[in-house]
């Protein structure tokens, strides 16, 4: 059943991204999108985390304008709820980078 909602959520998020890319609300949604859909991690999050994200997004919708600090607070709230909004892994050999820098 969860996959039905995940599929629907993903499509709605992409629709929002494509139609309202420069909207501040979209910025928050994309942070959640990246946490959920990188390597299909949506399956790992709990019902309570989804509820927290739902309440957060719902609190933003009625606002006439969302300023940058509200966006930042919302993204940090997602992080506090346990959503990893920077899920992408970059493997950087730091010692190699250091020796390159030292050349």
């Amino acid at each position, binding site marked *: 059943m969860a996959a039905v909602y995940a599929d629907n959520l993903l499509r709605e998020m*992409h629709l929002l*991204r*494509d139609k309202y*890319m*420069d909207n*501040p609300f979209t*910025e928050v949604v*994309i*942070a959640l*999108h*990246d946490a959920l*859909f*990188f390597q299909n991690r949506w399956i790992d999050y709990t019902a309570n985390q989804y509820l927290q994200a739902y309440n957060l997004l719902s609190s933003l919708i009625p606002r006439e304008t969302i300023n940058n600090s509200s966006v*930042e607070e919302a*993204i*940090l709230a997602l*992080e506090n709820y346990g959503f*990893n*909004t*920077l*899920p*992408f*892994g*970059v*493997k*950087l*050999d*730091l*010692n*190699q*980078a*250091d*020796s*390159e*820098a*030292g050349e």
Partner: protein
Amino acid sequence: MEDKSNQEHFLDTSVARSLLLSTQAYKQYFDTQFSEQPLYIFNYVQMEIKRSYLINLISFYFVLRLETINSIGDAIALWSNKFKTSELKAILQLIPQLFSTHQLNFSSPQDKEKALSVLAIYIKRFELILRKKFKNTNIDSTACTRAKVPLNIDLKNPAKGLKQFADEFGDVKNCRSKCQIDQFLLTQYRTEIEQLVEIASQLPKNTNTSGFINIANNLKEILATGATACDCKRCEKIGDAVIALDAPRRMQLEHTDNSFDYLCPPINQPHYKHPSENRIVINVSIDDSDQG
């Protein structure tokens, strides 16, 4: 046994960057090490992450934005052919993950604009989390000006804010004119630096010591030449020393680099070297295969 529950953790760039950017297995390793304890950095560490990662992401943004680049694939191809260092190659790991998660078509000119927006949003979010995820010690003895360059992105026109940041961050002449790295090295910590140079002169050069010896050689040149030897390029080569010297002595410096094994003991800086990402990832793989 010593109670470590109240130990405060100060993160070197290698650990701070891993907490933001490494593979899930490595992030989980650090989560178990630090549990819910507060983690500290200072502006200089933020600057090193901006210099080694954020500025390269911004460069990629402008490669992708070029009118001569038709698609994400074109930008990746150009980047792959022209940029060879490990820090630049790291971008090639991030970009496919980010754009694939957004199901963008790498050969479609239509998806190039979407990719630019997605990347700008990611850069903005990365800078936010770098700024807010860790507590700041507010120690800023070098007064690094590059660290304070703001990144202000309006998503209606991200290129403007990104370019302004890149211009100001890249203006090393101006930044150097405002920082205090020369006083930091030549006055505040001169005695400690002379001691480090002396220690390095007596060490054999091998894989464990080479990083520290390279740093010490640069410090030696700064001691000999004076303030004119201090610039942002040189700072890149002595960053570990700056971080060790300015780290709060009451905190444990968390790192992965061998150089701190030689930098920290002479200045009485508590420190802990964590295993490399490779070692953690390989151990996880072995554990998984044992269970299979």
